[in-house]
């Protein structure tokens, strides 16, 4: 599970000339959130609301200005290696090694997690078959289309069976077939106990797969709840209306 307590992130520093001259930008303010094991949590918010900053802090790519994070009881600040062993992260623009073939990239990722070679080979067949990558086994990453690259990154991220998965905008540039595949896979993984924290702009995706939804606005968490709780609380029966009324757009 993920425990976030009073998490804040600010850039720059306060000047002495008062608020007018302040160069401090608070990207995330006092975020407190608990995501239990097996929950699929969708983090929604307009552009620049602080979604990516939050996910980067949770994965260790940004250091919080204050507050604490616990990943399955592990403080990533104190033991980053142990926390990284149990997480998976799919950024919106993932980095891939252009000069490796898909198989080599898969093997390399497995070796970073110290997975046994036989196990890697076994999982490669299974995962490549699932993501339709079998015919691209010997193709260099640089020659893959955007959609195929996304499939490859999903395939390698699931290789070490992460207990917690962070995904930033999971459906960018994917075809309808892959979108369905990813949605079904995320639901199945959550059912099997994987905790999933994803950010998205696609409200339909949140409506479709989220167990719980959080809405962030100017760095502050302004709403959380299940879809039915949100419908009931706001007296509306679609997420779009709730989102627009909350974010004031």
């Amino acid at each position, binding site marked *: 599970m993920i425990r976030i307590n009073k998490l804040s992130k600010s*850039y*720059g*520093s306060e000047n002495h000339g008062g608020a007018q001259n*302040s*160069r*401090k*930008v608070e990207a995330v303010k006092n975020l407190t959130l608990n995501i239990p094991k097996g929950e699929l949590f969708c983090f929604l918010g307009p552009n620049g609301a602080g979604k990516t900053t939050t996910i980067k802090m949770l*994965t*260790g*790519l*940004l*250091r919080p200005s204050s507050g604490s994070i616990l990943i399955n009881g592990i403080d990533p600040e104190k033991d*980053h*290696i*142990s926390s*990284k*062993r149990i*997480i998976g*992260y799919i*950024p919106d623009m*993932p*980095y891939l*090694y252009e*000069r*490796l*073939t898909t198989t*080599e990239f898969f093997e*390399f*990722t497995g*070796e*970073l*997690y*110290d997975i046994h*070679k036989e196990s890697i080979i076994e999982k490669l067949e299974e995962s490549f078959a699932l993501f339709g990558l079998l015919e691209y086994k010997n193709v*260099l990453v640089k020659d893959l289309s955007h959609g195929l690259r996304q499939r490859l990154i999903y395939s390698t991220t699931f290789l070490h069976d992460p207990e917690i998965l962070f995904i930033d905008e999971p459906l960018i540039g994917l075809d309808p077939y892959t979108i369905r595949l990813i949605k079904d896979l995320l639901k199945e993984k959550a059912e099997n106990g994987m905790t999933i924290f994803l950010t998205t702009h696609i409200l339909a995706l949140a409506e479709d797969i989220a167990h719980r939804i959080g809405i962030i606005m100017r760095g502050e968490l302004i709403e959380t709840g299940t879809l039915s709780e949100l419908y009931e609380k706001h007296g509306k029966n679609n997420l779009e209306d709730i989102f627009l009324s909350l974010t004031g757009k």
Partner: protein
Amino acid sequence: MSIEKALFKKIKYSFFNLGRILSIQSRLKVFFILCSTIGLIAVMWLMFYSGFRYFDTMSGFGNIIINKLFTFFFLGMGVMLVFSSIITSYSTIFRSEEIPFLLVRPVGYNQITLYKFFESTLLSSWAFVFIILPYVGAYATYNEMSVLFAIWTLIFSIPFLIICSAFGSIFIIIFVRFTPKSKKFFFFLIAVIVCLLIVTFLLNPTSDTDKAMEVFDVSAILPGLNFASNPMLPSFWASEGIMALTHGQIFRGGMFWLLLMLTATSLLVLINDIGGLLFYNTWLLTMEGGQNNKRAPILFKWLDKLLFFLSHDIKAMIKKDVRIFFRDPVQWSQVLIFFGLIGLYFINIRNFHYHSIDAMWRNMIAFLNVFCLSMVLSSLGSRFIYPQLSLEGQGFWVIGLSPTSMKRIVLTKFFSSLFAMIIISVTLILISSFMLNVEKEVLIITVALIVSVSIAICGLSTGLGAIFIDLKQRNPAAIVSGFGGTLNLILSLCFIIVSIVPIGLILHLKTVSKITSQTAENLLMFTGLWLIIIILSSSILPLSVGIKSLNKNKGM
């Protein structure tokens, strides 16, 4: 399998896949690159060998220089490697897109630092192989040494490269981690450097030649030779060790090799520890810098007024390029280091007493300075001017779709880089000539030469950059190391050789009275004509082909 093994296996895969990528390239292209590389090494070998033969004709003085040159060569290489490592380490360790990928995986900060250090060492030192090979080859041929000399050189070079690269990497990690990020500090640093340069300049005697210095003093003419023999320097251990083993002194050679290995290993341990302690925080600092601006940036607001005479599209492109350049510390710091070092050397010419030696030598040094500055210009042309069109990348459509022509885009890039290059290069050559006290004739020729080299390098780099444009690649190092980048560097070097050598030779022959003044004047006129022809062919030709190529590939 350990993390280290996985990372090095990845490098191995990437290396072997390079062959796969090359195999689908045009054979003519691969053949051309191979021939050019072999040709370049052969020409450099010939130059070094001729140099040794020339020193040989000077009997005693020449022999002293030749004996010390090998040690001096390693010192020079070492200094260049440290600076090269400083530049490469910053982009490899802190700016690599691979870092976030590794940071979210169970890889230790020390492991990332060490892995990136090796990558940086490889990137910063491979080009030096092209200098080491012909130099060592020429030295061995001249001294009629055995093949073992080459083997010892290779064995000693590896720890030596690691030591030099480690100094650069350690410096940059500590510098980035502990240097305050405020603009005030940056301007303070610049002010200190400028003050130091002014003080150095003022302390140098600029008066008439000191007659007493006309006595031939080896250590005064080449002071670096003595310094290179300092037993505390790793370059000395490398050169002495190679020589000792070549002459059969196994224990002495072995001792120097162990000394190098011990130092290299200690530095690796230090990098590992520094990485574990400082890498993550330093990387975060580099990532978080610049996200704190609430105010509208005012960088070069005055440029608008300064460029009032230009049309709106050209003005917009120049403003954009200037802003991007100065907002990227990697770019301006590299330029600052290159030109700063060469400027420092020119300002210190009088400390080496070069101004008080014979006119023949002063002329030779003046041309060597032009050659040296031209080399720096060619590497900067390849590093900054060649990839500038490709680096427009995904944003190229903004320019491509705007109501301007490809011709205007390319010519704007050409003239703006030429303007910047000429200001810097002419200033540096004027300093060099003033410090050397050269004759008016030499001053005019060296300025003309450096202007010609600037035009040719800007023309070649912009033109070839347009012909071999690669909008998908975001890494400048990868753009530069491609076929177009290599061709650009080779052609720039060829231009430098065919433009500087003939004029330098004529002036030298005139100074040593091998030809009359009248003959020299006639030859210089012909050479001037030759210079005009090669400037035109190396600027107008690639520029026009580049423009045509861009127009043809508009749909990229």
